[in-house]
């Protein structure tokens, strides 16, 4: 039986150690940050959600930021500001 030795073309990704932020145990009275990606209706969806959370759980809406691009990760300074001023963040999409 013939044998052909071939190269495995899969390319390994570098392992980047990370851990998830602690989850709040309750939504009651927490600070909600909003990260608007700039898409059509993204701002309206986020505003409606924030209003519903405030009415239902007494949350406060803190930092509201618009990403400079709909298709790139938020820049580090935006993420840092959200981390500093929010207990949870909602990132919105539109279309």
């Amino acid at each position: 039986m013939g044998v052909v030795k071939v190269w495995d073309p899969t390319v390994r990704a570098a392992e980047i150690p990370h851990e998830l932020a602690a989850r709040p145990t309750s939504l009651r009275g927490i600070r909600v940050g909003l990260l608007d990606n700039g898409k059509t209706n993204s701002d309206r969806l986020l505003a409606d959600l924030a209003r519903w959370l405030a009415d239902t759980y007494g949350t406060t809406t803190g930092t509201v930021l618009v990403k400079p691009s709909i298709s790139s990760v938020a820049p580090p300074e935006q993420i840092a500001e959200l981390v500093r001023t929010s207990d949870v963040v909602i990132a919105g999409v539109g279309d």
Partner: protein
Amino acid sequence: MSDTFDACLDAIEAFLAKEWSDGLPVVPPTEKRIAAALEALAPHLPDEVVGMVPPRGGRVTVRDVAVHAVLAGCRPEYAPVVLAALRAVLRPRFNLLGVQATTHGVAPLIVVGGPVVEQIGVNSGTNVFGEGFRANATIGRALRLLLLNAGGGRPEAGDKATIGHPGKYTFCIGENAAALGTWAPLHHTLGVEAANGVTVFGCEAPHSVLAHGGAADILEAMASALATLAGNPTWYAGQVLVVFGAEHAAAIHREGWSRRDVQMFLHERARVPLAALTRSGERLDNPARWPRWVTAAGAMDPGYRMPVMREPDDVLVTTAGGQGAFSAVLPGWGYMGGFAVAEPIDPAPDAGKPR
């Protein structure tokens, strides 16, 4: 011998089963073929890291480029072109993460420019976006296979394109140097002065432009192909590529139009009513999409017709294709990325190199 042949066919089936392909059979990457591609990539060493390919973040080395050139069916001398194209899409300006993942059907087009086009047989003439040429077919395919195997850009997983386009299998053309006339090669306009260069541009499929007549007639038809409410540049700004077939290019050169003249004319003539966009509830709060002068003009004049290309420099101009009254426009992705990036071809391919 027939046993070995069967083993090759089994290898092809295995690659398809493991999703290490684009859905078409691949050339099994044997040591001998990989070594030939690596020789063409020298002095780059096999373990040299080219970069991380998003979204999965596969760490691609020169050896991986050689492997994927073989998989795609490249001749060894095509490998430096594949390497240059990969380097180009990994530049931050291209935003490959977004290009890979977006719902838009954007794909990296490779435009090969310089003497290398003739040397390795990249088609720059008749049926330039079509079939029939190994270099065009396999160079574009090798880049796609890297985006799949290293970047994880598989449909649904890392590629959310709603409809995609056929150029996502392979998308590579040669620049028609004879038709350029006095215009500089595309890669020179993007800051690469080497004789041989590649330009990558994230764009939609080519849209045909039929026109008879003089330069203005041709460009007016082209402007009308760009002035559409369906195009990403209308909504998201960014760049467009216009490709003049040999006959159209000759007509434009006869009348002495510069590349800048072409850019200015298309910028001036390709317009859409801003009101048609705002009717749908479009937001105008992103300055990258809606410069102040657009929103201000729209506020002053309800009938304002906005330039689809916000700046003349957003029009990329090249020549490719044969005789006939046709050219093409290729709309880009938008301000988000896919911007044209050029890279020198290093090492310069040498089809005559003994091996």
